[in-house]
């Protein structure tokens, strides 16, 4: 079929970017890697490739996931394609001193061994270009705090599935406050039994209903943080 014979290098910049959005949507890792290479060869800055081709494409994927059009398997394939592009861009982004998307420390709270939701958030955050440090399950407050400091993280993500372990999130946030470092981090919480009211009550920045919402929320908080720094 003629439609299958798209030659990426023959597309204009605008068409190529739109094609890359489609290819991300379809989870085509090799095509994304090729597209990233072509844009870089044409003199695009690594940061422009990241934001205009990859992050913009993943935003479409995230919106369709949120709206129940795509499901986890498709989103994970898209995130995998995104990671392929990121692997090429990452050293260049560092070398050019481009603004970072942000770094997240994530884990399920002490007492909670349910990690599927947390794993999905980690994968989608990576897919959206964030660096993710996954602490796994059953994390005590010190483990979160050590990792936040060691990694120079921007975001703390906590997950719980049990009504009995949810309150531990407040312990972590209270400890951040006690040490006077609460404002250094964006704190996002999630998990099946949580809701917005709970997130507010324990002093988190936001409750995230699912992995797509977590990515969108992280992006908007990071943007606000950058704007505040530049103001």
């Amino acid at each position: 079929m003629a439609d299958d014979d798209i030659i990426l290098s023959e597309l204009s910049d605008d068409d190529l970017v739109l094609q890359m959005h489609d290819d991300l949507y379809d989870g085509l890792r090799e095509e994304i890697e090729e597209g990233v290479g072509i844009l870089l060869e044409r003199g695009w800055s690594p940061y422009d490739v990241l934001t205009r081709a990859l992050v913009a494409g993943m935003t479409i994927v995230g919106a369709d996931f949120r709206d129940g059009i795509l499901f986890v398997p498709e989103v994970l394939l898209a995130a995998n394609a995104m990671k392929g592009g990121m692997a090429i861009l990452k050293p260049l982004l560092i070398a050019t001193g481009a603004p970072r998307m942000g770094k997240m420390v994530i884990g399920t709270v002490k007492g909670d061994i349910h990690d599927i939701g947390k794993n999905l958030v980690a994968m989608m955050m990576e897919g959206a270009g964030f660096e993710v440090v996954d602490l796994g399950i059953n994390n005590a407050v010190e483990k979160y705090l050590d990792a936040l400091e060691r990694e120079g993280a921007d975001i703390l993500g906590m997950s719980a599935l049990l009504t009995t372990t949810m309150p531990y999130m407040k312990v972590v946030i209270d400890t951040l406050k006690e040490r006077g470092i609460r404002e250094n981090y964006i704190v996002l919480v999630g998990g099946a039994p949580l809701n917005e009211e709970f997130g507010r009550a324990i002093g988190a920045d936001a409750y995230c209903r699912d992995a797509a919402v977590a990515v969108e929320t992280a992006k908007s908080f990071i943007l606000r943080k950058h704007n505040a720094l530049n103001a």
Partner: protein
Amino acid sequence: MSDALSRLLATRDWLMADGATGTNLFNMGLASGEPPELWNADQPDNIRNLYRMAVEAGSDIFLTNTFGGNSSRLKLHNAQSRVHELNRLAATLGREVADAAGRPVVVAGSIGPTGDIFAPMGTLTHELAVEMFHEQAEGLKAGGADVLWVETISAIEEYKAAAEAALLAGMPWCGTMSFDTAGRTMMGVTSAQLAALVEKLPNPPIAFGANCGVGASDLMRTILGFVAAGTERPIIAKGNAGIPKYHEGHIHYDGTPELMAEYAVLARDAGARIIGGCCGTMPMHLKAMRAALESRPRGPRPTVEDIAARLGGYSSASDGTGDEEGPTRERRGRRRS
């Protein structure tokens, strides 16, 4: 029809399964973070009590304390070498309680998801999943489980792998998925897709259905989806006791025994043959469910509107069935033929 579950199904209109495992174990002092399966060896009396509570509340079927008893989950606690032992012990304790019940009670060997995601994104392969489930199944079989009970699955691949493991172990099985994302499973499976899938397996389950998810109303809508698919196979309904609600600083499942009794009757009238609870469902809920199933006459099959009126509204507008398959985004042209 040599297995205990098929024999019971042949003589009874409906069977009642059990309720929550985690909720009840926490009430007995299980420390959160500790894998419940270790109690099969360390606190056998508590596990016997867990099973007895279900039997005494009227359950015809109870699930063993082995939901996280596969090597992938136990590895999180460095107990991956104990898969066979912990599963065998759980089933042995179950056998003991069931045989002392004075009526036929089915010991169902619980098999939960591996928690891993399938390749290419994740690490799980079909072979690995079959191997893990088979290892667990052999332990449950050695302990005397009547049937394997695969539950809370969200991926078709994982459901198939569990079916193959049951075949390898020579065990009859049942299998339910958790429909918690706008009527579908996390991986996008609809009730109609599961109903079609089970008939294509070389060793179909004795019964299939839904467990956990988002509360009784959503679960009932999924049951109607199975029925609409025209299945002749017994349907399992195992819903949560409501939805966890945050109320003045406390968190609790909002499902009362009365609501769960209503749900049980609706599930039976909708066509489910095996009816039980899941998270938050305690003996008091089970007793109310059993009493309602025994005392209330069978009614007409409820509509989605009846269910909403009697159990409360749904978490999403649609259950995903009848939608067009796949992405609906306007495309520039497809690459893959």
